[in-house]
């Protein structure tokens, strides 16, 4: 059962034509780290530079108009992709910057006597989870350190699900920061339910959607969060472009992280006033060509269909889990079933370190990620230093899963 015409799709991705380590077929199973790019995205970026390149929101020549239109069209396209209004979409460098933007809003407001919604006091609590990527963990540690707020977290169960202890959400909870889908476990978290619990106590909900927005239909209205961050490069777009979506009423009050050109309303020698969102959060000349590339990526994903992509990935994930479970000495870290589970499959092998396993897979042409995947506390939770992670996307097929399994068997034999 293959729901996508993968053979046709693969022709859109030139990199998949190349071989690696001599004449091995490239089996790219590291889309959780970054995705490959279709011609549509590469051409959009190239066309922008060839035909329309200019700085946006400044200058009144024709190229400046065209560049500004293309950039703002990209914002509208991305907004449509996640069911948002265009002026609620802030372009950032990546998801890490987007999450830091929210974290710094709290730090800055607290230190500067800023708006009450973004001000933290000692005793206030920031609630995160043990399965966060460092990008949605370290910034909150820093906020807690600067403001005197207390950091707390939901634990993770043995089967890789969030342990949603309702007692952790209290009147003291001001921020709940949680990943939509774990980049290690593949677990998809019940954001709507968490948001409901958080909103009942007046907390602001920040969601890291890096691993969900590229792989399934995400509508920020349905999600129920207040801020949603994601990266362009994990969803077929270029590097250097990411997004922060925020509720209009919150963005309107939110102080900026970076200040300077483009984000101002009026500037005097001793003070300045700031532009309304989203410009307030886009200081300096932005990554315009990359935004245009992301526009093309969203259109490409929409044309293929997010539901079909998700179903296809779940199918491959099922095959991978089944195949890995059949290999003696392999243990999957994460849910064993396919319920609320995305296409990241992490595992450990008895007697073979992930670095060595990854090396043998690489020698077989299979590109996976090894290490702690920027989720060190999560690995500590499972008492392991590292895992091997295969992550699937629309251009992977059943042959890729077969090569992963064959390479894994080869590694176990080699180090036996």
């Amino acid at each position: 059962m293959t729901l996508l015409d993968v053979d046709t799709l693969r022709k859109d991705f030139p990199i998949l034509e190349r071989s690696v380590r001599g004449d091995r077929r490239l089996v790219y199973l590291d889309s959780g780290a970054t995705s490959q790019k279709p011609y549509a995205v590469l051409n959009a970026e190239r066309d922008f530079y060839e035909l329309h390149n200019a700085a946006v929101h400044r200058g009144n020549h024709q190229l400046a108009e065209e560049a500004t239109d293309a950039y703002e069209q990209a914002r509208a396209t991305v907004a449509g992709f996640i069911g948002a209004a265009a002026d609620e979409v802030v372009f950032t460098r990546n998801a890490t910057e987007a999450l830091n933007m929210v974290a710094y809003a709290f730090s800055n407001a607290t230190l500067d006597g800023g708006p009450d919604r973004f001000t933290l006091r000692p005793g206030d609590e920031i609630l995160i989870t043990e399965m966060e990527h460092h990008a949605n963990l370290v910034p909150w540690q820093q906020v807690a350190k600067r403001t005197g707020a207390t950091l707390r977290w939901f634990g993770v169960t043995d089967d890789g699900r969030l342990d949603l202890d309702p007692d952790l959400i209290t009147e003291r909870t001001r921020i709940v920061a949680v990943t939509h889908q774990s980049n290690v476990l593949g677990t998809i978290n019940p954001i709507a339910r968490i948001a409901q619990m958080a909103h009942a106590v007046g907390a602001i909900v920040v969601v890291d959607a890096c691993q969900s927005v590229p792989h399934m239909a995400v509508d920020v209205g349905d999600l129920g969060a207040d801020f949603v961050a994601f990266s362009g490069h994990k969803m077929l777009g270029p590097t250097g472009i990411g997004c922060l979506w925020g509720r209009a009423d919150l963005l309107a009050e939110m102080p900026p992280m970076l200040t300077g050109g483009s984000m101002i309303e009026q500037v005097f020698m001793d003070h300045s006033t700031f532009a309304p969102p989203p410009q307030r959060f886009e200081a300096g000349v932005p990554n315009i060509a990359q935004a245009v590339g992301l526009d093309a990526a969203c259109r490409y994903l929409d044309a293929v269909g997010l539901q079909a992509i998700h179903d296809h990935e779940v199918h491959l994930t099922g095959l991978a889990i089944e195949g890995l479970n059949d290999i003696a000495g392999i243990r999957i870290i994460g849910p064993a079933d396919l319920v609320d589970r995305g296409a990241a499959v992490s595992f450990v092998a008895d007697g073979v370190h992930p670095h060595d396993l990854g090396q043998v897979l690489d020698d077989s042409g299979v590109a996976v990620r090894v290490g702690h995947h920027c989720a060190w506390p999560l690995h500590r939770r499972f008492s392991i230093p590292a895992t091997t992670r295969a992550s699937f996307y629309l251009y992977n097929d059943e042959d890729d899963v077969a090569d992963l399994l064959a390479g894994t068997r080869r590694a176990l034999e080699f180090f036996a």
Partner: protein
Amino acid sequence: MNMETLYQEIILDHYRHPRGKGLREPFEAEVHHVNPSCGDEITLRVQVDEGVIQDISYDATGCSISQAATSVMYEQLVGQPLDQVWPVVEEFVRLIEGRGKVEPNEDVLGDGIAFAGVASFPARVKCALLGWMAFKDATLQALGKDFT
């Protein structure tokens, strides 16, 4: 550069049967080093007496390359006077960081030349050097100098 070139028999042997592993006393300095990219860790102790490396003892988690490199280091350096130890450390680092373009010096490195293949895999350089850098740090501390 293929996998068999990387995983020399000597490396696999040291990985399966690490020499000198375990933490022992006495020791003059103890360090803890990590490889932030993969989470591998080593705790390493050095005992220096009268200008001679009397013991290197260690407890480590890591891949075959990092485990074997530390084991080979133990064999190469324990019992050696300091003035003969530093050239070995220097030569090993030069080989590993040489991007595969450095001709290994067997006279200086002994079994250490088995790691020549590592230099062609940039992602594994830190693995091979984890134990060696910990040793350098610990020894300099034992001698009352800062690790640089």
